[in-house]
């Protein structure tokens, strides 16, 4: 009997623990990748649907558990009954019907709620005011192209905040240059994969400014773990200013022409582009406005001179297995190059 009580107690505590944890997750603040803290319409629809399905499954759990625990307590073998067998019951058609029909009804309700939200999110028409971004997934970084705005950048996505009264959502077209990836910024939307030869589409309309984090969610190779996402939701004015700056070609500063020459004569231009120069490689991120970004290597390190220097000389120290080669530059070349890169604002 004590054993039974212990079993039941453990099971209940673990379940209560589970639900407390999930509730705490909802209230927890510092993590900005919380599925329960939606900041955009798709994420919010998902959040509300999740509460609905949690409620239903919670009730099912409570009911079935009660029956289970009750049967364990009430029908446990007692020493007095050691030698007799209980009534041998083979089944009951009515009961079978009841516990078939009720689950079918629950499923129908749940399915209709699901279908409604699927359609609302996936088949939402794109308004004229939408900002369009083409996202191209690479091993292990993100390329962003704004076709209407003439902007090409990498790893840090800027989008305007969307006022519910006059929505300016951002619609992303998702492509891949190599393997499968997945764009997941939990507080802004559910994830959608980037599959080569299979363009996808997703959208978000964040209602507050701020920085939203996420990362690649579909295993894409060695450094899948450090293919991070950083979305900056700007006010319309800040966004316009950012676009204006990003459209400029690279700053041409005579003082760093030595570094520019290092860039243009070593293998850098095979992979990287810098607008307004001969560098037009597509394999690696566009570096025209490298210094406008707060991180490098798709979020693997902060964009500081030390990190940038280390990244160029020994990328494996920051992101082992990334496709950036160690450039084997001499110290003077590296110094000159750093001087040049730091002008790319």
């Amino acid at each position: 009997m004590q054993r039974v009580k212990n079993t039941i107690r453990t099971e209940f505590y673990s379940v209560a623990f589970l639900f407390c944890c999930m509730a705490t997750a909802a209230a927890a603040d510092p993590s900005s990748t919380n599925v329960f803290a939606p900041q955009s319409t798709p994420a919010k629809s998902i959040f509300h649907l999740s509460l609905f399905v949690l409620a239903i499954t919670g009730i099912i759990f409570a009911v079935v558990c009660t029956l289970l625990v009750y049967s364990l307590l009430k029908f446990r073998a007692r020493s007095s009954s050691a030698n007799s067998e209980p009534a041998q019951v083979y089944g009951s058609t009515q009961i079978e019907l009841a516990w078939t029909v009720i689950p079918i009804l629950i499923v129908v309700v749940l399915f209709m709620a699901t279908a409604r939200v699927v359609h609302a999110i996936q088949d939402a028409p794109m308004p004229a005011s939408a900002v369009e971004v083409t996202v191209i997934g690479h091993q292990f970084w993100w390329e962003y192209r704004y076709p209407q705005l003439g902007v090409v950048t990498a790893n840090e996505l800027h989008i305007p905040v969307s006022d519910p009264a006059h929505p300016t959502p951002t619609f992303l077209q998702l492509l891949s240059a190599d393997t499968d990836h997945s764009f997941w910024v939990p507080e802004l939307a559910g994830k959608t994969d980037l599959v080569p030869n299979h363009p996808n589409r997703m959208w978000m309309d964040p209602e507050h400014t701020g920085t939203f984090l996420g990362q690649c969610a579909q295993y894409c190779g060695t450094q899948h773990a450090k293919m991070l996402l950083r979305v900056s939701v700007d006010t319309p004015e800040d966004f316009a200013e950012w676009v204006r700056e990003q459209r400029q070609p690279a700053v041409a500063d005579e003082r760093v022409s030595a570094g520019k020459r290092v860039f243009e004569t070593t293998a850098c231009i095979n992979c990287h582009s810098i607008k307004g120069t001969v560098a037009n490689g597509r394999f690696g991120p566009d570096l025209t406005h490298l210094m406008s970004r707060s991180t490098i290597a798709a979020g693997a390190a902060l964009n500081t001179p030390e990190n940038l220097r280390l990244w160029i000389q020994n990328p494996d120290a920051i992101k082992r297995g990334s496709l950036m080669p160690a450039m084997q530059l001499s110290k003077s070349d590296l110094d000159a190059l750093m001087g040049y890169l730091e002008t790319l604002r």
Partner: protein
Amino acid sequence: MSSNAITVPGIRIEGKPLVETLHEWITTVDHKRLGILYVIYALGFLVVGGVEALIIRIQLMHSHNDFVSPQVFNRLFTMHGTTMIFFVVMPVMFGFANYLVPLMIGARDMAFPRLNAFSFWLSAFGGLLLYFSFLGGSGLYGAGNAPDVGWWAYAPLGARAFSPGHSSDYWTLSLLVSGFGSIGTAINIIATILCMRCPGMKLGRMPLLVWLYLVMGGMVLIAITPLSAAQIMLLIDRYLGGHFFDTQAGGSAVLWMHFFWIFGHPEVYILVMPAFAFCSEIIPVFSRKPIFGYPAMVAASVAIGLVSTSVWAHHMFSVGMNSYANTFFAITTMAVGIPTGIKIFNWIGTMWGGRIQFKLPMLFCLGFLFQFLIAGLTGIIQATVPVDWQLTLSYFVVAHFHYVIVGGILFALFGAFYYWYPKVTGRMLSERLGKWHFWLFLIGFHVTFDVMHIPGLLGMPRRIYTYEPGRGWDTLNLIVSIGAFIQAVAILVFVWNLIVSYFKGAKAGNDPWDAWTLEWSTSSPPPAYNFATVPVVASRRPLWDLKHPEDPDSQYE
């Protein structure tokens, strides 16, 4: 071990040389011995896969850890998944099928004993081939090692361009080979069940375990083969310049996903059907009542088998199928929960009004009931497609499927071990060690897998060798890792119990649990020929009829 030698006083019988014993085991075609071989093989790989899991959990204990490199980590999670599914759960379930099905239907052996042996050795070779990749994976460019493309080997990651060397080939070939072994065993199981039943055992009188293995065998035939087909296509791509999944030539990466999950989803039902089978035998015996609703249980099992072949793309909700496809797979996924729920209700109905004995097999099955319920409900949560757009590819899914496989399948399997070990060896497993095993494993399991849902909800994707601090994932991952070690200790206690009880366990006799199916009518262990005379049955519980001649089941069925 499998003969009933008659001791004659005054005669000294010499022991056999070890070589002869080994030779007997290697060339055996006896279903009981092959069953034991399957199980021992699986237990070995359980330890290997478990060690891989522990290394993964050490690496993930805190953010930016560097216990292993990303390359090693990626191999570890690939090998852990592949090993556990193909070289632990599949073989152990085939092992139990081999041992129990002929005994439970009153047969002398499986329908095709030599095919049985061939299938076992083929599957066993597959496992060894997979692990040889650690040594042989390098290939021409020294670029390979064990496979590191995840156990799904999504295209185009598995293509030559992204997987140089031979590591992916070891994955492909080992699964192809062991897949053919599985098909052989499945054919054998189906032929045995349909053609070798003892007189009187109509289909409606078979134990539920036998029914469930019939459904499982059928599912193996139509689920494993799509994977074999896809792997042949992958080999054609990698070695003959084919373009099946070559996106640069117009091929489709999504097609690989469809083919893989057309295999992958029924596969997990293949893994769980035997767990249902074990519970359907154990719960009635320890409730002292027949299973509630036998026809409904059969119908539900067949329904699960059929419907589960239509749900596969619920693994692909984020891939970008259109809204109609997504809703179709949502409804089929929710639909398969209905017959599954019916089974849970029927098990509770079996316990209801019974005299429940909390012996170890029953304790593990109760754990199964509770945990499988939760796992099913988190499955329903993910079937609501938009919610899955957040949860898929995160640790929520990892927690869900471990809840099914560890909390459900492994618990039921432990119950089966404690229930049938006496029949196989003639000795009872130690209750004391068993209790330690149960409680340690229960606690470790919940510490790990309850908590694991939360990082998923906080945005932690799967298959990452490290993660950023400040996302709130550190402490949670530490707790998860601690639970893993508790489970490891429990497994060691279990293995120790298996070994020690073989030599020192209490003698079991024919029928230690006062059960009702045919395997308990013969000695423990059974003689090589199983039954001295062919049994004739008149109901679903032939031993109940014998023990209660005044109230036989045959009157009521």
